[in-house]
């Protein structure tokens, strides 16, 4: 080992599925992991889905065991409400500064009984639920969030606005609420870094022709996911703004594809999944999918597609699509593959927007000193589309922060990043064991 | 089901003889032993006391004098004899075993679950006229012998086991060779082969299987249709009497838990029956709890459960041989009930126990689409 003392800890940024899998695998190998998560919960966007294609497995049931494992793993130092502020050094010797915001709720004492919510006088839109439901100033994003420990939103909490409100504190039987908590600045020495910060959804407002934001009952994919979610704002009931059950729905693919200049790889499949969502709740509903090219790569997905088609869904290959509203009706105007103009009246429209880099990706890239590709995703070594190796040795990117992809590929990349780290640093591996 | 089960056999050998069926079969066995086709044969032999028959593995031909392939009773189900001999592996002797079709079907089932090894055994069946209930036979063995022979001549099944009277598989060929007497002209009988092994035996014996056996097959078909009607009728009547919990409880109420039915059943191969195991031995508290819930419980409480459990375990393989009913000291119509259920469960999987070695027992082997049904269900 002659070389100068190196760190063996690993920093993982983002506690979505990729970050979790990477952390667990590293921990299994005996590494200590610092997992930095911006939000107050783990699971990233996967926990927003009720079911995942193609086997329609319950998503939370799939992930929560992994989350539990994470929370109970003594090798993993989970830092929530935390962000990386500064990264210095190089492979083997990174020095990382992390800013960890106070949660004001003690992770040990709180047992997640939620008794503190009701008394809180403040009500706000719940971002996690795409604003479809309300939350308090002390809150967990959704039922079943892990860790099941609320946080206090200091921007809106009366207590932090100088008012003398202690409602939550009084309601807590476990003295878990601690207004005295302070933000911390943590400095760590790590050997390598895995970036797994995930993705954002293309803002459908940028494609006005689909009427999103203007027309009621035009939903984005994420909104719809939450509508269908049994722990979501409607507890899985699908109905229109006017409370009625939709009799027909249109799903529009490739929203923002032209703007982004790439295919997001998962939209066709999750759109097909939405078919199942709708049919399972409203068997008689009439569904039309507007698409240009069907992208369902892989051994299992066509089978999935065929199964969906059996439900009588109308697949319409259409080029220009515009959504308008006259009176009550929503009209989808389109040009079919023969170039013929036609239109379709529906109760509800679901947009399948593209996957795009996180808004703060470039900022993080700057801090890490790695380059992004032309789309703003973390760039793989020499143009390699899937490579987890970034432009800077010792820093790896996994999951959708590296490019749009499905869960399977995200997990593969997470494990690959771990593979890269472990194989690059064999000498210390044995060191660890004998030490 | 309007056709006799099993693969249709068109060719065979017609043998002329002055002997009766029993003697002819014994002759056939002797010949096979002379030609070293078999080193030994397994046949029912009358016991010295003359009041029963037992399977005996015979090498010394002189002992064949007491052999009775068509014994009037089935004291031990032949399949049990075969597994008794070969459960631990194949022997070195080439053995010809003469058994009733239902015994061979049970043997086939046992082979599927690895309880026998047929490598060196040639299974020979015959058109079965049925057997008497042991208890009837024992009233006066000598007289019973006459009664039986006479009944067989008149092909009258009234004296036979109740399940024999409704057996529609009495000529089903699932072994290697089969001796056919149905539809045979006087002084002749048929031999047909159902397997490569069978063909080889006939070959070594220099008997060609080139004769047309339509007469046999047609007669078999007639018997099948007649018996099948009878069977369905009898099952229908029995079902009326035994459906519903109360009827079931009453039907088995006289059971004294001797488990004879299980022990003599060729299919019940468990080393230690669940219902004899510690699993059904509870603490006095448990028993009192149960009693308190009902005010009173029969003791032991698992009587009906035993029969239902056994049914669940073996009805897919039940061959309706009737051994259980013969062994029941309380004259419960076990075999009739089990054969009724067996027909229904086996129909479900269009499976016939013992029809062929190549059919896996349902529930162990499964078809892939069965799984998809499950998927779609949820």
């Amino acid at each position: 080992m002659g070389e100068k003392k190196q760190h063996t800890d690993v920093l993982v940024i983002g506690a979505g599925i990729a970050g979790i899998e990477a952390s667990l695998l590293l921990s299994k190998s005996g590494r200590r992991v610092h997992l930095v998560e911006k939000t107050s919960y783990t699971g990233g966007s996967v926990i927003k889905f009720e079911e995942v294609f193609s086997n329609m497995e319950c998503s939370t049931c799939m992930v929560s065991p992994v989350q539990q494992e994470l929370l109970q793993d003594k090798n993993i130092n989970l830092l929530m409400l935390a962000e990386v502020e500064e990264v210095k050094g190089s492979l083997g010797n990174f020095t990382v500064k992390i800013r960890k915001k106070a949660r004001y709720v003690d992770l040990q004492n709180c047992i997640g009984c939620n008794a503190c919510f009701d008394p809180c006088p403040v009500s706000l839109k719940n971002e996690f639920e795409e604003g479809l439901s309300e939350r308090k100033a002390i809150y967990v994003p959704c039922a079943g969030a892990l860790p099941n420990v609320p946080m206090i939103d200091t921007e809106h909490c009366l207590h932090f606005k100088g008012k003398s409100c202690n409602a939550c504190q009084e309601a807590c039987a476990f003295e878990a609420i601690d207004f005295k908590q302070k933000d911390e600045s943590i400095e760590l020495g790590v050997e390598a870094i895995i970036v797994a910060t995930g993705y954002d959804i293309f803002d459908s407002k940028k494609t006005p022709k689909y009427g999103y934001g203007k027309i009621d009952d035009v939903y984005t994919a994420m909104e719809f996911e939450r509508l269908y979610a049994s722990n979501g704002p409607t507890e899985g009931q699908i109905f229109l703004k006017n409370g009625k059950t939709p009799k027909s729905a249109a799903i529009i693919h490739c929203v923002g594809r032209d703007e982004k200049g790439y295919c997001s790889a998962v939209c066709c499949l999750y759109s097909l999944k939405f078919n199942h969502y709708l049919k399972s709740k409203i068997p008689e509903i009439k569904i039309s999918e507007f698409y240009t090219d069907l992208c369902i790569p892989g051994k299992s997905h066509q089978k999935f597609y065929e199964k969906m088609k059996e439900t009588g869904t109308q697949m319409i290959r259409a080029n220009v699509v515009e959504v308008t509203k006259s009176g009550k009706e929503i009209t989808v105007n389109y040009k079919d593959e023969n170039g013929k103009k036609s239109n379709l009246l529906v109760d509800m429209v679901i947009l399948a927007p593209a996957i795009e880099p996180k808004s703060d990706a470039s900022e993080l890239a700057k801090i890490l000193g790695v380059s992004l590709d032309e789309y703003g995703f973390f760039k793989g070594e020499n143009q390699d589309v899937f490579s987890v190796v970034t432009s800077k040795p010792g820093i790896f990117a996994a999951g959708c922060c590296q490019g749009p992809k499905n869960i399977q590929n995200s997990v593969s990349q997470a494990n690959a990043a771990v593979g890269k780290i472990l194989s690059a640093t064999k000498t210390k591996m044995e060191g660890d064991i004998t030490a | 089901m309007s056709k006799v089960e099993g693969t249709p056999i068109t060719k065979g050998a017609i043998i002329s003889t002055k002997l009766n069926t029993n003697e002819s079969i014994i002759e056939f066995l002797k010949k096979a032993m002379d030609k070293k086709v078999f080193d030994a044969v397994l046949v029912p032999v009358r016991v010295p006391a003359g009041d029963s028959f037992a399977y005996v593995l015979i090498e010394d031909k002189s002992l064949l004098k007491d052999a009775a392939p068509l014994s009037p009773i089935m004291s031990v189900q032949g399949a049990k004899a075969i597994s008794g001999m070969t459960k631990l592996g194949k022997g070195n002797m080439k053995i010809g075993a003469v058994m009733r079709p239902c015994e061979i079907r049970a043997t086939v089932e046992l082979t599927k679950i690895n309880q026998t090894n047929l490598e060196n055994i040639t299974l020979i069946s015959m058109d079965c006229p049925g057997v008497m209930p042991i208890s009837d036979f024992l009233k006066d063995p000598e007289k019973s012998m006459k009664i039986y022979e006479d009944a067989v001549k008149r092909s009258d099944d009234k004296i036979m086991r109740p399940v024999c009277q409704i057996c529609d598989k009495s000529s089903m060929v699932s072994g290697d060779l089969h001796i056919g007497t149905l539809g045979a002209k006087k002084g002749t009988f048929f031999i047909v082969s159902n397997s490569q092994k069978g063909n080889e035996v006939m070959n070594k014996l220099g008997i060609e299987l080139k004769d047309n056996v339509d007469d046999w097959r047609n007669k078999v078909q007639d018997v099948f249709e007649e018996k099948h009607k009878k069977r369905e009728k009898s099952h229908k009547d029995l079902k009326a009497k035994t459906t519903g919990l109360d009827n079931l409880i009453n039907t088995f109420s006289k059971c004294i838990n001797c488990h004879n039915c299980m022990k003599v059943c060729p299919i019940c191969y468990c080393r230690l029956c669940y219902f004899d195991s510690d699993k059904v031995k509870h603490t006095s508290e448990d028993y009192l709890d149960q009693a308190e819930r009902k005010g009173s419980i029969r003791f032991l409480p698992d009587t009906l459960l035993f029969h239902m459990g056994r049914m669940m375990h073996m009805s897919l393989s039940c061959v309706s041989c009737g051994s259980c009913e013969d062994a029941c000291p309380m004259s419960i119509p076990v075999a009739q009930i089990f054969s009724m259920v067996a027909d229904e469960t086996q129909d479900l999987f269009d499976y016939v126990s013992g029809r062929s070695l190549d059919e896996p027992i349902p529930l162990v082997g499964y078809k892939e689409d069965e799984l998809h049904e499950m998927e779609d269900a949820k």
Partner: protein
Amino acid sequence: MTKALKINKNIEQGILEFLKLLLKNGKVKGVFTLKKINDEGSIAYSLITEPEELNNAVPFYPLMPVNAGKLLSRFTLKGSTKEPVVAVVKPCELRGFVELIKREQGSLENLFIISSTCGGVYPTNMAVDGTIEKNLSKYWDAVKKAEIPAEIRPACKGCVEFIPYTADITVDLIGKKDIDKQFTMLLNTKKGEELAEVIKGEFLEKDLDKETLDKFRDKRKAEEKKLFEKIDSEMKGISGLVDIFGKCIGCHGCMRVCPICYCKLCEFESPDSEYSPSSYESEVKKRGGVRVPQGVLYYQLGRLTHVGISCVGCGACDDVCPVDIPLATIFKKVGESVQKMFNYIPGKDVDEPLPLVTFEKEEFSEVEK
């Protein structure tokens, strides 16, 4: 002289009332006795906790569907009952139970035993067509007259142990002409007296009527002698054995109903009793022919050695045998000869240790051939 309780009631009603009171007064949590379990009159041992359910109970019914000794053992196998329970059983059943207790297969703790001088029981198959029901009045007449009822189990005909040994309460039946009006319960133990508290009656000091019962015993002895002689004639030497067991179909029913057979897995159903093909082949080469499956005689003789010393001669094995082998008589005869050697009466006394008997398979290997 023993404490006794005279009750001026018809025996059937009287005993049922007594049992009901035991339940109602919380003396016991449950009553274990014979009971009509359906309209067809099927009778089975039942565990009863609800007084009303006793209306269908028939404690002294001349039938032994299963040897209750086996059932009581099952009831207390996993430890003595925490709640008090009273059981009404026949003397041989009680003795069977005691033999099992000696083998750690049960416990008398918290268990109250009511038994009676026993007139014997009918073969179980007579219950199938209701013959017993028809014979009942004849049966009780005989019992009242201290005679042997016709058609009862051969084993019972020749049974001389018709007086219970270790019962807490003995109901005196044999030779009691007036049991339709009154009957006496001998309270043999403190436990017995404790039970008796619940019912009104006339307490007295009394013993069983020795004279009557001795006479009765002689009649039974005579019957037993006949049975033994018959067996002797049928069962001369090994060939006799082979003949008599020759028709055994190996159903092992006798073992399953035997109150003494308590093995979890009978030796003769265990892997040790599986014969390799080679053993068959060597046999057949030696003798030209061999019975398949092997081991019928093994089984019978093996069981004889295992059980002989404790055989209580209840006759359950006789009843269950589908091929009418006179097992009970054989076992009783052999059993008694062994028992005499150790002058041991099975089931007489819980504290009397078992004479040591072991069994070596080899001992019989010649016999089998």
